[in-house]
């Protein structure tokens, strides 16, 4: 039997050093960014991708250890996702095969669509912090949203009595709320009496997607809201398991952010 090893000889300490060193280097660089996006679902990924493609420094905060949110699964644990015209153009741009099953309705494999979107977002230069939860907002002059306070997700899961882990703050010129129906970022503003959310309305698949795009926008100085969070803030009808509005809302949110960043 040959003594030749397949992999290079690296010890445990080198592996640990590499992880800690590289994470710390990136984290230090991203304590200040152009845009922080809370939520790594389809709308957040799309917004990040578009902004990073334009050369902006973007950090996505995701509470889970995986990206993509509900985009992996279409609905009812079935991993076929539906997209309505014209959003299939984005799938085509990402190189995701999709089939038109009825006029204006396209179906694609969830894992294929989600992984391609994640890869494309990474390729564009977006950086991620996963297993990290949004804890609070940073408000500066005239109550402008100027960053976020974050903590490890597991800290939230532990009883307060046995955890005393202070969060940390990250600064950015723009924050995007892509936290889905929870609208966590907007709700922090609501807690401070700075805005009012309405809660989402009854499901109306036919119409809700158009409205999500229409109402995507800057809801408070420094805070842009995209995706299903839009529905919660403005009391729009709930969507069914269709994802076109998530992608296009992310794209529109990025356009608004870009406009604000370029001022």
């Amino acid at each position, binding site marked *: 039997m040959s003594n030749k090893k397949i992999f290079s000889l690296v010890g445990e300490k080198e592996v640990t050093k590499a992880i800690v060193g590289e994470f710390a280097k990136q984290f230090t660089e991203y304590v200040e960014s152009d845009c922080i996006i809370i939520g790594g679902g389809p709308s957040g990924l799309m917004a990040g991708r578009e902004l990073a493609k334009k050369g902006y420094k973007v950090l996505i905060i995701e509470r889970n250890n995986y990206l993509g949110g509900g985009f992996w699964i279409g609905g009812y644990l079935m991993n076929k996702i539906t997209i309505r015209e014209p959003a299939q153009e984005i799938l085509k741009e990402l190189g995701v095969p999709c089939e038109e099953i009825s006029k204006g309705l396209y179906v694609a494999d969830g894992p294929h669509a989600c992984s391609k979107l994640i890869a494309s977002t990474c390729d564009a230069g977006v950086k991620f912090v996963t297993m990290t939860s949004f804890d609070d907002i940073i408000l500066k002059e005239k109550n402008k949203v100027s960053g976020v306070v974050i903590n490890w997700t597991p800290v939230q899961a532990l009883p307060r009595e046995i955890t005393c882990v202070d969060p940390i703050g990250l600064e950015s010129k723009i924050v995007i709320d892509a936290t889905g129906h929870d609208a966590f970022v907007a709700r922090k503003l609501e807690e401070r009496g700075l805005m009012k959310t309405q809660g989402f309305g009854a499901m109306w698949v036919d119409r809700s997607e158009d409205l999500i795009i229409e*109402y995507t926008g800057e809801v408070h100085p420094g805070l842009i809201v995209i995706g299903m969070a839009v529905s919660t803030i403005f009391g729009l009808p709930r969507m069914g398991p269709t994802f076109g509005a998530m992608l296009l809302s992310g794209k529109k949110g990025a356009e608004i952010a870009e406009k604000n960043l370029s001022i």
Partner: protein
Amino acid sequence: MLKKICLYNGVKKDFLNLHKISDYLRTKIGKIKIEIRDDFINYCISKIPSEKEKVKIAENLSIKIAQCRIINPNKRKIERTPHQLEINLEKKYILNWSQKPVGNFYDGFDLILIFSNIIPQEEISLDFCHIIFTNQLFGTWDEKDLRYHARVAIFGFPTIISTTGLVEAPAKPREFYIKKQMGIDPLVLKEEFRGKFIDYEDPRTTEVMKGYVIQALFFHLFGDPFCSDKNCRLYNAHWQEEVINAQLKSEYEFCSKHEKILTKIKSQF
């Protein structure tokens, strides 16, 4: 004495032809003047002479219309301060409702109240019957089951008629909802039930709306737009099947009682 019927076109799509509705009205009511006008808000604002006043009224309207939105159909609408973005969106479409995306749900009586306040002064009289066509969805609160119900038309001064309401308010066949609950895509269901309900941009819309306009006329003249005869165009249909029957399939247009009233109207005017 009714002198003029004003039909306002806030839809501006081929599937709703107000000229055909106007021609139909002429055959029923004789010489009463009928005028087809642009979108209602647009028309009313265009009649205001001062530019400054126009801007002020448009701003005020955008706030009031945003306040009319029903967020939860199971809760009575409460006074709320709309977000500036909502107001801005209403303002964006204030002069062009036909371009406004459909999906919001408004309190219909509140809308009528807002609209009644911008009717040109010289036309605030029972001599004028104002009928507004819109693609926006509205409803009314029902004290019996404590929830809002979408409506095709709400009769008043002015009357508002919704093309979206025509699709969403009268119930579709029961099987449609059962299958929808089972998770079948609504687009697939629409194909399966095609013809059994009035759909968006349905070519039958104009024909159906003729009946609703006559209902509006009866409300204006007598305060009662409805008839209990399921085959009469004045029947207050709650199911799509009933709408299709009363407006499209029935062997006669109006029951003998209402036919006589229409003949009388025609001879009087």
